Each structure stands twice: as C-alpha cells, then as structure tokens.
C-alpha cells in the first residue's frame, strides 16, 4: 500500500514538464509590445475607448415603446457611443495597418515560448457576398420576445427567445466566430429560464433592474423574464478585466449555455444543430472621419444625411425608410460625459432582401470586418458632393429583439 507521502513523491517525479525548456526568447519589452498588438486585434478590433466598459458592444438601436429608466438610458447611451467608436476606430486601425486586410496575430516567429503573429486573412469581397445568399432560409419570425440572455466580454453571449431560438456567439471561435442559432422546445426554454432564476440573482430584494431590453454589457450581464413576465437585468457582473473573473452566478449561466447540449434531454430541442444565424433584418449606418490622420475624429453620420450622399440607386432603396435613431439617448451628455462629439448614431433597419439589394449597388467595393460568416462588415465610398470626402457604410445583422448584433468582446 502506497502511503500518501510516497504518493506525492511519485507524483512530483511524474511532472510532464521538463524544467528549463520554457525560457523566453524575447525580452519583456518585446513581449509586452506583442501582447498589446495581439490584444488590439484579438479583442476584435477594439478601440481603447475605456477598457473597463467599452469592450462589449451590443447596442439597442430600436426605439422602445416603453420609458427607459434613467440607469438603463445611460447604459444604452454609453454603449451606443462606445460601439460606434469601436467600429469606427477599428476600421481605421485595420486600414492603416495593412491596407484593408485584417491580420490576426496569435503566434509564431519567436519560437514556442513567445506569442508571435500568425496571420488570418479576411477575404475582401463585395458587400453583397457578406450577406446571407439569396434563397437562404432566414431566421424567423423576424422579431422575437427575449426570455433570457447572458454575455461576458472576451467569452461570448447567448440570447434565448420565447419561440425557442437560441442565438449566440463564442469567442473561442475567433477569428472565425459567427452568430449561430439553435432552437429549443418550450420545455428547453423554461429550463433555461429556471436556471437563471435558480441563481438567486433575481430574487425579491436583489438589485435587479427591470428593463425593456437587455442592457449592453460593460463587463458582463445577465437578464431573464421572471414569473410575472418582467424582464430583469443584472449588469456589470465582471469583477475585473479578466474575462473569467466574473460573478459566480454569471459564470454559472454562461457555463450552462455552453454545456446546454448535455444538460437537457434531446427531446427538449427542436433543432440542436448549430447553424449560422441568418438575420431577417440588417442595420445600415454611416460614419466618417473628419481628419483622415486622426482616429479620434470618427463621427457618426446621420442616416438621412448620409442617404443624400449615396449613389441614386442605393439611396432610392432607402427612400421611405425612417432611421431608428438613438439621438435622444446619445445626446444625454450628462449620462455619458466622454461623448463630446455630439454625434447621433442612427441606422436604417431593413429586411435582408432590401439589404442585399442595397449592397448590390456597390459591386466594386471591398468590405472589411471580422472574419467569419454571419457577421457585420463595412466599406468606404468616395463622396464628392457637397465636398470631397469619404463615407463608410456599415451593415450589421439585427437580433430578433431589435438589437444590433454587434460583438466586440
């Protein structure tokens, strides 16, 4: 019989790592430089607006029929502004660095013990090619009532709807991550809802906030529809910048989603096959950089004003469309003192077939954006009137509950 002391000696000798084989091949300064460069891209093109609050960028672009609470309002405003900065800055970061080809450094030139770059090239294709192909079965119905959601920067997020759709994204799939869709049956939906409620985070007396839609995630958040039909949210559940340093309840529900296929019976799924999320609606929004050499001069352009700058066939497709505006929220300067630009992010939200027709008006354009299908993208056109400038057009899929499906974590 082996004693515990002997056992520990044996275990120590069974160490699979040979010491001394992991000496760094670069000095600290070089390593740090690579870490920072890597982080800039791995975090999907994130602009360093405010590291603690801007990494995640899911934005409610729809006006709500209900009054937003003041807390919710500033969160939306902050994230909306941050999101536009994120996208806008990323466009220019990428363009400046490599002429339009996104590179994803993770590893390689400095040996096995230092992070160095490998490169993934995002194909530069015309806008229409980045949309669901004609004839693709789109996610239906076009709109959906959210039942539960959980998201954490640098990790992923999940949005579950009453009709059973589970739409999510997982950062483990970077750079080929995508919005994906599965579908649960009623029992599956209820099981997830109960799993959220079982965390105790939404018990009476807990500081949950009733919201009309899930708030953006300056760190991490979870929300669920309670037994009374109210949508309750807990926000900022990250304890720090480490994506895994989150509140145990958020960790629990994220893990629950990640392991859902093994947590619930097969017959609680309607379709457990993971498919690309083919959005039924897309947003079209616009930004411009007033100083081509200054990343801080990115400005959102009012959608109606931008429409007037578009080639006539493209503009005609948007005629009669009213932009969904966030002007009211974004102009709440007291809520977001970091916003001094005064821009008012808004977007046209159109059915996917209209989005495709719009994109087809730019057959010569080459898009940029994160790799992977089922994602957003953008391209820039030259504008000559009223003055020579450029206009960047962004297209992002919409979530069924009306958020722009934009993920920067």
């Amino acid at each position, binding site marked *: 019989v082996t004693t*515990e002391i002997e056992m520990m000696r044996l275990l120590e000798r069974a160490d699979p790592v040979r010491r*001394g084989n992991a000496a*760094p091949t670069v000095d*600290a300064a070089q*390593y740090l430089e690579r870490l920072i460069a890597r982080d800039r891209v791995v975090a999907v093109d994130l602009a360093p607006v405010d590291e603690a609050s801007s990494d995640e960028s899911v934005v409610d672009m729809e006006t709500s029929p209900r009054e937003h609470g003041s807390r919710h309002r500033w969160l939306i405003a902050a994230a909306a502004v941050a999101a536009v900065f994120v996208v806008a800055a990323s466009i220019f970061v990428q363009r400046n660095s490599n002429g339009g080809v996104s590179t994803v450094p993770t590893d390689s030139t400095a040996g*096995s013990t230092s992070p160095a770059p490998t490169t993934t090239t995002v194909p530069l294709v015309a806008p229409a090619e980045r949309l669901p192909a004609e004839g693709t079965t789109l996610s239906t119905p076009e709109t959906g009532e959210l039942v539960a959601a959980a998201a954490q920067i640098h*990790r992923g997020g999940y949005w579950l709807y009453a009709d059973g759709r589970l739409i999510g994204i997982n950062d483990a799939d970077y750079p080929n991550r995508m919005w994906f869709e599965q579908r649960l049956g009623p029992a599956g939906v209820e099981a997830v809802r109960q799993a959220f409620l079982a965390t105790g985070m939404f018990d009476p007396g807990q500081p949950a906030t009733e919201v009309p839609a899930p708030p953006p995630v300056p760190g991490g958040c979870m929300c669920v529809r309670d037994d009374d039909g109210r949508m309750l949210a807990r926000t900022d559940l990250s304890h720090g910048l480490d994506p895994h340093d989150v509140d145990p309840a958020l960790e629990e529900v994220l893990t629950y989603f990640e392991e859902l296929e093994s947590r619930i019976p097969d017959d609680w799924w309607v379709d457990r096959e993971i498919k690309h999320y083919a959005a039924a609606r897309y947003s079209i929004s616009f930004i411009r950089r007033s100083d081509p050499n200054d990343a801080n001069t990115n400005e959102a352009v009012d959608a109606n004003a931008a429409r007037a700058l578009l080639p006539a066939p493209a503009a005609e497709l948007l005629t009669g469309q009213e932009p969904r505006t966030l002007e009211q929220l974004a102009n709440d300067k007291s809520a977001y003192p970091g916003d001094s630009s005064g821009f008012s992010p808004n977007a046209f939200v159109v059915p996917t077939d209209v989005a495709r027709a719009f994109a087809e008006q730019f057959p010569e354009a080459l898009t940029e954006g994160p790799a992977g299908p089922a994602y957003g993208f953008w391209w820039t056109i030259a504008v000559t009137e009223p003055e020579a400038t450029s206009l960047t057009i962004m297209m992002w899929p919409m979530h069924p509950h009306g958020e722009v499906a934009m993920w920067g974590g």
Partner: protein
Amino acid sequence: VHSGEVRFASLYDRCFEPIHDYCSRRLAVDAVDDAVADTFLTAWRRIDDVPDGDRALVWMYAVAYRVVGHQWRSTARHRRLQERLRSTVNRTGPAADELAIAGDESRLVRAALDRLDDAHIEVLRLVAWEHLSVGDVAVVLGIETGAARQRLHRARRRLASEYDRLQSRATVNHVAPPEGAS
C-alpha cells in the same frame, strides 16, 4: 520608462517560465502560448494590483488557473461547433503530458491522477508540480485554506488508492486507460 513597464518586466522575468510550465502541464501544446499570453495580458492590465515579491507568482498562478479553465471550456464548445459546421479548422494538438511521460512509473501515476475529479487533480498538481503551500493553493483556487487542506488530504488519499489499484493490474503488464479515454 513607465513604472508599469518596469513592474511588468520584473514580473515577466520572474514568472514567465513557471507560468509557461503551468500551462504546458494542463493544455495541448498549441494552446499554451495563447494561455500564457492571456495570463500576462491580464497582469499588464492589472499591473497595479499585482502584489510584490513572491506573492506575485501566486497571483499569476491564480490568473493562469482561470485562463486555463476557460480554455478547457472554450475548447470543448469550439470542438462541437466546428464538428457541426464541418470546418477544416483543426487547432488541437497532442497534450504536453502525452509527449513527456517518461517511464512506466510516471505513466502509472498519471493514469491514476486522470481517474480523479478535476478539483482533486488541480490541487495535487499545484502542490506536486508548482510546489505551492496549502495557503497558496487556496489563493489560487479562490477557496478557504481549510477547504484547500481538506481537498488536498482527500485527493492524496484517492490518488494513492487509484495508484495501488492500477499497480496491481500493472503486474500483469497492463495499464488500463482512464475511463472514457479513447
């Protein structure tokens, strides 16, 4: 030079090898560099929170523990996603331990270790391979010292039991793979 960079340089010099070893013991070889980078990136972002002196390495182990845990979860999910989508992406590689098991005794010990649950495996690794005290193990795992001590005690006992069981089988020249292994 910014004081944060000076602190980072000191942390890098002191901790790179042990953190790299830590990740190598727990991840497939092609995931190690990313995990090390994530650990040091977290340290850089929180450089003012990193304790001084010897406590810095324990703090780094605590970060690495969480990074590695996330990589495991992510890898499992990633694999399922990629299988479903019939992607050609293949980022898995042989585990470090598969490459480095040297000799039957170590093989037997590791086979026994693999039969324990994750919590027990981790506490044993931290003590035997990272040479941490029970108090430091508690810090890394984010649990009370008493709980760490109790967990270690149980883990040792179970490891010895599994080892003896395997050893008795090994006498007939056969080491059974851990349950569930292919």
